[in-house]
């Protein structure tokens, strides 16, 4: 059985967006079961984010995006309904095995194409680009079981004592931030999980 790695992610976090291609690629390179866990954004959980932090996050994310050669800057902040709808569809995408495609498509839309997932045209574009049928996605948005799964993900992040995203958890050890993917890879290699060897 493949080792489990939980990947806590927020659609409102630019660092989550930056982490996604490398996070999903871990499952290509290592013998792991990468479980995507979408969580409710901090500001929708009643936590405030100081202006200085918000400004620096965007500046820093832009520099990191340039370094990673990822598009960034034509933004639509999905706080609220947009984030909620992306979380709902992401659970539906997990059921269909298309979470990677959906998360990458949503990130691209939100952080580099100013796509508004709170609108039908916006979310539909994101879903269909990920190979998801719009009718199924719409049904997921009104499914209370899906909403419960998102709540459970968020609660689990809090239960493990973490506050931000992205976070990876492997064997009880937490790796916070897109800057720690290489450290996680090192630990996975140490555990003999590298498929490439």
């Amino acid at each position, binding site marked *: 059985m493949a080792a489990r790695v939980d990947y806590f992610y927020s659609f409102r976090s630019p660092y989550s967006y930056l982490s996604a291609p490398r996070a999903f690629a871990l499952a290509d390179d290592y013998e792991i079961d990468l479980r995507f866990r979408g969580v409710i954004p901090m500001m929708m959980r009643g936590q405030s984010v100081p202006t200085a932090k918000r400004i620096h996050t965007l500046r820093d994310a832009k520099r990191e995006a340039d370094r990673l050669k990822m598009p960034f800057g034509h933004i639509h902040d999905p706080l609220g309904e947009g984030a909620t709808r992306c979380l709902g569809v992401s659970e539906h995408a997990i059921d269909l095995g298309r979470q990677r495609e959906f998360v990458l498509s949503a990130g691209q839309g939100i952080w580099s194409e100013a796509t508004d997932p709170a609108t039908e045209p916006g979310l539909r574009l994101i879903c269909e680009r990920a190979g998801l049928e719009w009718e199924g996605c719409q049904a997921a948005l009104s499914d209370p079981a899906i909403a419960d799964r998102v709540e459970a993900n968020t609660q689990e992040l809090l239960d493990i004592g973490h*506050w931000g995203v992205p976070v990876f958890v492997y064997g009880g050890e937490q790796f916070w931030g897109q800057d720690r993917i290489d450290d996680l890879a090192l630990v996975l290699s140490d555990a003999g999980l590298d498929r490439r060897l």
Partner: protein
Amino acid sequence: MRDWLERELGPRLIVAASTVTLPALAMARARQILGRSGRLEMYFGFDDPASAYAVSDLGRRLVGRNVIFDLRPVVQRGIKDDPALEPKRAYAITDGRRLGRRIGLTLSRSEAIAPQKTAFLATWAAAAPPGASLTRFCTEACRRIWFESDGEIEAAQYEPLWRECFGASPIADPEAVRLNEKKMSSRGPYETPAAWVGGRWFFAQDRSAQVADWLDELGWKVER
């Protein structure tokens, strides 16, 4: 309209403004023409393992560049009323272990240090001018605290190191620490370690390669 400003125009303007480099490049060029050095302000805490890593890592990256490593210790910092303060301090130990591994060092502590426990070191170092002596003291003190010892941190353990570096006894200046904290806040950083150079600030433990690239762009390249 307000929604569009907050969700789209505001973030886009912040990102676009962050790519403007001309004023910083012109300022750096002017300093170079006048024969002056560059300056990298490094805000750090002796109580912070990420700072211990960053002081060492960035110090290495500045070798051979005509840039002053302006080490500015602080005690009070962080996001006001941060509900995640305690989990962050605990996580800093886990993370410090990984950062240490990157430079071949093993973290010797398993618990966070309260900022006040190392405040005396900050009051000494904040009063000293930047230069080789201060860099040596801060780098070595950070290394001893985080990679060579456990338990209490006493002034008597670090006074010999200070005398070795400066040839005199340390003088505590709490007001100099407060000034560093104010300066850090005015520059923008809210956490340590943070590096400020050429009008930009960086998370010093994670962006040292970016800092080096930015210094190259500013013309403060490795020369020797």
